[in-house]
């Protein structure tokens, strides 16, 4: 319990501390940020460890006549682990990337606050707490989206707020309806609605939930805010817009399907049967649009849209293998995508190039960056020595096991298009003339490069030994099936 409270509070306290000390130097601020995010990470690891060991950790209370609770289960623990681990990497990367940027105090304040809030999403124990943190996440990350303060950034911020709040509104309606049916919003006691049979309007409630969380999970056509938000600094794009924020939407949908409706009930609803195809559409459309983008970060953003629906697809199959694939993909995709974004950030910082068409020769200037970038690209196709191979394998197995072999076909097609998406970039990067001086110098670059190489290494390692992540995946599947 103490671990849980400390995990949530460390980030918030650190953020507020940074926010309230305008005179602190950059160096001191970085140290404070590092210490508090490391603390938060360690405590969330401890929480996750306790959850996997089968202990119940719970903080609950009644505020304003409504029950609120924090109680991580294996799914929450996995999400918390992903988020907290990657936050540490992104934090270190930020020290390199943000050096010399403006408004660093605001940046680190909200960077840490957002950490706390995301952990809140992961560890929430009932729908109300989930809703609260989901809503707060919008506000905690808004200042990061508009970091550049250009008119483009302001527009992106407005779009982000409006999309997210509308989604939250849909969720609130759905929560109210569930509350009026059950009078209880806790996740812990098995699926909330399972006992009530097929109530009229159940399909609508599911649709409202999926649409509401689907905004942050960037299900098409609710994805428009995500490419716009790419004007944020790269560590933010990497961590929040490829993992934390969008995963909170994905996580919400997983929660709704497995903890509120339950996989059996969802399977009996028409809406539940349509959902895999919505995800399949987003997978293909997202990656096809991605290949059309010239700006590297926008290409990565549309690619994120596509990849998030991999996870959703697995969840929507309502089959243990599908869910295993979804959880596995949550873990593996996040490591690779953050690597890709880190690479894009280093390229932009060191060479000033942001477009795919300008990449020729970059590989010789930034050899290690582009090597890691290339490894991650291969991962996005689903090649064997990388961890995404396994998640795709489970996903396809889930699709086939439920009799929807077409879903496997969608995944294979998407993998092929993925090859067109990134491999030409890597090839072009190494195509230009050799012998240019390397730009990977200076302590700033090594602060950016180290997390990137480490993450690519982790991706390779978990690809070679998928058993490393299997206990987590297994625990989640066991919990829900």
């Amino acid at each position, binding site marked *: 319990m103490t671990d849980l409270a400390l995990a949530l509070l460390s980030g918030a306290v650190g953020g507020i501390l940074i926010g309230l000390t305008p005179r602190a130097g950059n160096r001191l601020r970085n140290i404070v940020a590092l210490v508090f995010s490391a603390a938060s990470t360690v405590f969330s690891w401890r929480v996750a460890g306790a959850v996997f060991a089968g202990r119940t950790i719970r903080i609950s209370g009644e*505020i304003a006549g409504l029950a609120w609770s924090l109680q991580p289960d294996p799914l929450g623990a996995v999400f918390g682990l992903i988020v907290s681990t990657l936050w540490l990497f992104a934090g270190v990367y930020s020290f390199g990337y943000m050096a010399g940027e403006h408004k660093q105090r605001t940046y680190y304040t909200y960077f840490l606050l957002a950490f706390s809030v995301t952990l809140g999403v992961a560890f929430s124990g009932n729908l109300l707490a989930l809703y609260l943190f989901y809503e707060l996440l919008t506000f905690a990350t808004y200042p990061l989206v508009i970091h550049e303060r250009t008119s483009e950034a302001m527009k992106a911020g407005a779009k982000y*707020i409006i999309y997210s*709040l509308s989604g939250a*509104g849909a969720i*609130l*309606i759905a929560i*109210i*309806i569930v509350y*009026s049916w059950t009078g209880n919003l806790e996740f812990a006691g098995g699926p909330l609605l399972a006992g009530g049979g097929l109530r009229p309007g159940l399909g609508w409630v599911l649709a409202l939930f999926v649409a509401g969380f689907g905004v942050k999970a960037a299900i098409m056509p609710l994805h428009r805010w995500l490419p716009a938000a790419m004007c944020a600094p790269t560590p933010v794009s990497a961590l929040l817009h490829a993992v934390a924020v969008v995963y909170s939407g994905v996580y919400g949908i997983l929660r709704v399907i497995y903890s509120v409706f339950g996989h059996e009930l969802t399977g009996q609803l028409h809406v539940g049967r349509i959902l895999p195809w919505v995800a399949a559409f987003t997978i293909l459309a997202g990656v096809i649009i991605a290949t059309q983008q010239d700006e590297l970060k926008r290409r990565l953003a549309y690619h994120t849209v596509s990849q998030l629906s991999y996870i959703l697809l697995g969840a929507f199959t309502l089959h243990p293998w599908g869910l295993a694939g979804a959880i596995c993909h949550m873990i593996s995709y996040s490591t690779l995508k953050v690597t890709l974004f880190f690479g894009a950030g280093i390229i932009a910082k060191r060479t000033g190039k942001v477009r795919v068409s300008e990449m020729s020769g970059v590989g010789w200037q930034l050899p290690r960056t582009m090597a890691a970038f290339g490894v991650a690209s291969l991962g996005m196709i689903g090649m064997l020595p990388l961890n995404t191979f396994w998640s795709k394998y489970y996903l396809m197995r889930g699709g086939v096991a439920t009799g929807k072999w077409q879903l496997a076909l969608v995944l294979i097609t998407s993998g092929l298009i993925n090859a067109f998406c990134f491999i030409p970039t890597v090839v072009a990067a190494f195509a230009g003339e050799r012998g240019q001086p390397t730009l990977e110098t200076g302590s700033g670059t090594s602060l950016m490069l180290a997390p990137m190489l480490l993450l690519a290494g982790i991706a390779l390692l978990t690809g070679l030994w998928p058993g490393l992540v299997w206990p987590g995946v297994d625990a989640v599947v066991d919990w829900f099936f």
Partner: protein
Amino acid sequence: MRATIEVHLPVFVVIMPLFVAFVLPTLARRIRLVEGVVTSTTVLWFLGAGYLASLVLIRNGNPIGYSLGGWPAPWGIELSVGSLSCLFLLMVAGVSLPVALFAAGNMAHEVGGPKRITRFYVLCLLLGGALAGMAVTSDLFNVFVLVEVATLSCCGLVSSRNHPLAAEAAFNYLILATLGSALILGGIGFLYIITGHLNMGFASQELNRIWQEYPHVVWMAVSFLLVGFGVKSALFPLHVWLPDAHSAAPSPASAILSGLAVKGYAICLIKVLYNVFGVALIQELGMHRILTLLGMIAITAGSLFALTQDKLKRRLAFSTVAQVGYIFLGLGLANSMSLAGTLFHMASHAVIKSGLFLAAGAIIATTGNDRISEMAGVGRQMPITMAAFTVCSVSLVGIPLFSGFIGKWNLLLGSLEAGNRLAQAVIILGSVLCAAYLFPIIRVAYFEPAPAADWQDPGLPQKTALILLAAGVILLGVAPGPFLELAKRAALDLLVMK
């Protein structure tokens, strides 16, 4: 002694501000003394209201009756203090206190010399007394008298600012409000003609016995009352006077007008509709559908108008139009959840909107302009003011753990119980639009590049007032306890036919 106070407390909370209002002009030369008297009056008033509320809560919501002058009910005027009255009294006195603090020593630039300021306080106290009267009275003609007192003091408050626009706005308000008063008087007259009673309880019994004999008169009465109170509480599309009046008034007056006065008329309408007509008759007449529809239109239209305003106080004024829509929507849904939600939202909006207007007043007074687009940098240079503004905005949008959420949560439960899907969608739409018109202000204030100006938070009493209101918003959101209890009891009282 204590027993005497307890017995006379219902009339004391009405008489006290009125009495002080009449004494105040004699002190006009000593403005410090005037301000001190006003502030201590509001403190005493708040304590009285709180004591009354605790008495009612101890009695499990049983109303405390009081016959004015010792004349019993059908002949004399009866005051009745139930949960509804207590909630409203607490809200009026609780908001008046910070507003009085804010006004202290801060009115010269908006109002003028000591005499004008004293007149301003007199009007405030008259309005407060009238609102308290509306809360406790259960006599129809008394309602009309109090409505008139309140209307005239509101007009005076609007015109008290030394600015040509204020006079014009006050005049427009006077014309429309008088029209509203005439309609209210007409409606009450119709009721008196067919029932022969002015006491709400007796009129209600008689009305429910005989209404089928006079269906047209009943229709006339209810539509006159709806339109009359609709004009006064700025129900869309009868709100046309409000944006001018509330933005032209001095800021503390705007806070009272938007936060309290508008709700006073709504309380009168609630009493007339639910205590005289009764929920069964309302539904028989189809009034609940009309109210719901009007509420939904008001929420949508008010919010959309608010979006297009660039002047800070006008945007807040249109936001009031939208929030009044929530009150009417909840009235129309006519079940215990929705009524509790409405009443709670009324109280929380009173605190929120006063906070917003006071913060806006402080900002406008410091920066010298009232355009949102020119507010860049306010967040850094006036941290406390802008923090209070932000807390109030977030609450109005309805983020959990702030007061706005609880009202909307109950309203949503109520619309679910009434089976009204559209109402749910509109409540949520209203929240999203509310974010759309309030957050840009916060964004400009905090995140846009600041000009090199030397702005500062207002003085200590003003800061205290803002902090009190922001704290109130959070307190109502985290621990609504007695307030929510009062709202729920009041909702049940309204639904039970006596």
